[in-house]
């Protein structure tokens, strides 16, 4: 297999290398790619959508349909990981508890675990002591990460970033919380059900905004139709429409990232993990 692989990639590689000679040079201003379609986007983004970040305007408006499915891809991945990995918790396995006042660790078999007790706290089977530095730093940072994420979502029009990057950052903040403490605490704060519903909702905001345009009487995703609803003219309606879908994207991406992390890091048990 290795030899076969080497032969294949050598042939493929040489072939591909050979055909690069026909390409326009790197950074060539007059290449077809730079002259055929993209000038339209660059020159018309402001007058069409009032968004200076051309990538955002192309992403969420001109090719907004692509992006809707891009978000759906993420949702699909989340659902897929859930479907593949998630196993309902079995209560027969043993669990570890710690008696807070004494620091004694006990192992409980079956479902005789101390319910609702506040002297016993559940700990992971691969328990590590409470790491002060990491925990503290993370607690300090999570807010700012989230704030920054929201900033990225909100300013996708003017600077790089947008719903997707902001969503990942938001998701990363919760992942950071899970890493710094333990998974159960994170799940308690941001439950699986929340993640699942939020992920659907996020994509639904996107697709729903599009469908709303359709019901108002224009094409699908044509945010100009939202103008009367938002009280703006058609161009600004596009700008605001982009913001709306960016928010949807951010929600979906955040939730899915968290959801996938929950499932991956706990092998589907959502009990204890990385």
């Amino acid at each position, binding site marked *: 297999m290795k030899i076969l692989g080497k032969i294949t990639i050598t042939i493929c590689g040489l072939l591909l290398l050979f055909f690069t000679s026909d390409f326009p040079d790197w950074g060539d201003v007059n290449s077809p790619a730079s002259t055929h379609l993209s000038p339209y986007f660059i020159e018309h983004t402001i007058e069409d959508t009032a968004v200076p970040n051309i990538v955002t305007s192309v992403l969420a408006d001109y090719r907004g349909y692509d992006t809707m499915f891009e978000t759906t891809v993420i949702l699909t991945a989340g659902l897929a990981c859930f479907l593949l990995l998630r196993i309902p918790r079995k209560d027969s396995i043993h669990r570890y508890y710690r008696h807070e006042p004494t620091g004694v660790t006990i192992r409980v078999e079956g479902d005789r675990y101390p319910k609702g007790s506040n002297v016993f706290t559940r700990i992971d089977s691969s328990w*590590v002591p409470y*790491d002060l530095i*990491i925990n503290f*730093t*993370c607690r300090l*940072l999570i807010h700012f990460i989230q704030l920054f994420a929201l900033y990225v979502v909100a300013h996708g029009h003017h600077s790089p970033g947008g719903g997707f990057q902001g969503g990942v950052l938001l998701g990363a903040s919760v992942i950071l919380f899970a890493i710094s403490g333990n998974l159960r605490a994170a799940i308690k704060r941001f439950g699986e059900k929340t993640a699942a519903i939020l992920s659907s909702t996020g994509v639904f905001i996107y697709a729903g905004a599009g469908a709303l345009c359709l019901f108002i009487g224009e094409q699908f995703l044509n945010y100009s139709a939202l103008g009367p609803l938002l009280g703006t003219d058609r161009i600004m309606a596009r700008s605001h429409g982009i913001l709306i879908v960016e928010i949807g994207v951010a929600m979906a991406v955040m939730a899915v990232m968290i959801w996938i992390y929950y499932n991956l890091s706990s092998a589907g048990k959502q009990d204890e993990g990385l």
Partner: protein
Amino acid sequence: MIILTSLVSGIMILAGLVFFLGGSIGMIRLPDFYSRLHSAGMLDTMGLMLTMGGMALYIIHDLTLNNVLSALKIILIVVFIFITSPTATHAIVDAGIRAGMKPWRKRGSEAGK
């Protein structure tokens, strides 16, 4: 004024580069993982602080609100790195201890323990 800030920031950037270089060299020369962390984690942070500071200084030579905010943001990055870098270093060291990695000791100081 412009010349002054340019000069200062240029010096700071160059100094930062020296620290970066020092950190990198330290990563090669030092004998074990723990001691390498000293140079990697710390000298890099220092280098970052200096280069960023230099650039923040340079950016405010043209004193507009946007530039000041940009400079502030650069400072924010430095602050952020100042908080995260030791934590990351600590996490790595902790991981090393838990993985059972023994620190390198000088042959002479073996008895000192």
